[in-house]
């Protein structure tokens, strides 16, 4: 379970903006952050991962406190159990797919999960290829597999499917769903894509100017789209 509360001053294209957000996510659930650019969606992922600092707030995941300034707790990014898929993937260009995954595997850890992920994400034929020679969809699969290799408690996805065509997007949504259910991962997904929300999300937070505008089940937030044939619920 994620308990999240954060206050931060955001510097956006329209000037300074105070962000005040608080929410909770049950273990194994997928929360989608939706809203216009500059609303604070990516910032929330970065705050959860410890890559961006906040002026005050509280973060706890599965009962473990990651941030609590009153108790002077601020767990560094390296010690937070997260898997982060960046918008531009952040794959290491000098290594093959296999080496990217092996780097993520903690020392002394059984490589069984790594091989399982290579199978699950259909990366076998690509494992000796460097990321520069992969398509967007293939890179996304590698980034997702790499984020999960260290068995994180929390999976953070920052618009990972934004640059893909509909067919590839559907296939990768299936991968995300399969991986999430298989490893019971609590997930926070940033996306602008409404069918994706309806297909994957258990809960949606609609952000605007650093505040929560709406929160609830996707069918409740987007009632008009819930019956759309383009958005089958799995």
């Amino acid at each position, binding site marked *: 379970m994620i308990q999240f509360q954060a206050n931060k001053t955001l510097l956006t294209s329209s000037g300074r903006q105070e962000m005040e957000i608080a929410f909770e996510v049950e273990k194994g659930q997928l929360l989608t952050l939706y809203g216009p650019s500059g609303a604070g969606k990516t910032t929330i992922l970065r705050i959860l991962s410890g890559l961006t600092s906040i002026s005050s707030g509280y973060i706890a995941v599965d009962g473990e406190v990651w941030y609590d300034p009153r108790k002077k707790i601020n767990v560094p990014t390296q010690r937070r159990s997260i898997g982060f898929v960046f918008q531009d993937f952040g794959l*290491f260009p000098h290594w093959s797919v296999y080496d990217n995954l092996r780097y993520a595997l903690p020392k002394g850890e059984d490589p069984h999960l790594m091989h399982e992920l290579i199978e699950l994400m259909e990366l076998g034929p690509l494992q000796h290829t460097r990321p520069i020679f992969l398509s967007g969809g293939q890179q996304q699969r590698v980034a997702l597999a790499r*984020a999960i290799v260290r068995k994180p408690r929390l999976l953070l996805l920052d618009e990972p499917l934004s640059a893909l065509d509909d067919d590839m997007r559907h296939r990768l949504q299936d991968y995300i769903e399969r991986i999430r259910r298989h490893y019971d991962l609590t997930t926070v997904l940033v996306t602008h894509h409404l069918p994706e929300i309806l297909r994957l999300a258990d809960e949606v937070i609609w952000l605007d100017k650093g505040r929560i505008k709406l929160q609830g089940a996707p069918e409740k937030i987007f009632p008009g789209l819930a019956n759309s044939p383009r958005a089958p619920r799995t």
Partner: protein
Amino acid sequence: MTDWQPLWLSFRLAFITTVLLLVISIPLAYWLAYSRWRGKAVIEALISLPMVLPPTVLGFYLLIALSPSHLVFTFTGLVIASLFYSLPFMVNPLISGFKSLPPALRESSYTLGKSGWTTLIKVLLPNIRPSLLTGIVLSFAHTIGEFGVVLMIGGNIPGRTRLASLAIYDEMESMNYAAASTYALILFTFSFSILLIVHLVNHHFSRPDPLS
């Protein structure tokens, strides 16, 4: 007959200076590239100062600084002077290299639980190879080409601090043009070759590897 001692001394000085600069500059450039400390502009300006300052100004201050330690007119003194004089030629390419990398590269390594040191050695440095090569070669070549600073700190003592660049000047003064020409031609050929290699290798690095 050509006296090879000045050339040997020049290359030895350049080699030692480059190795030491590499060790000093990697953490320094890493810090300057990623630190948010506002005062770092002062440090960056100080590092780049030898690029615009007359070598005699730097030589003068180094002479004053090194005098109490009896390092003036010694090879060690030359190494210390060269470290200051060639520092921007190593640090600046490395800073540019670090800054050119996408932030997600460093941040994704952190999110995979890797320390700053592991990230630097395993992720960042292999991806700034062209900058590393440029820094190494420019520092080496620039140290070979030093004149003003090494004249003031080293004193042009044959066999100890008389470098190739100083030997050319001496031979010219003695109207021994043949020897001056030999030294000049060797330094010219060396400098041209080394810069050509850097450009060729950097072109190679900038192309995707078709074998991978």
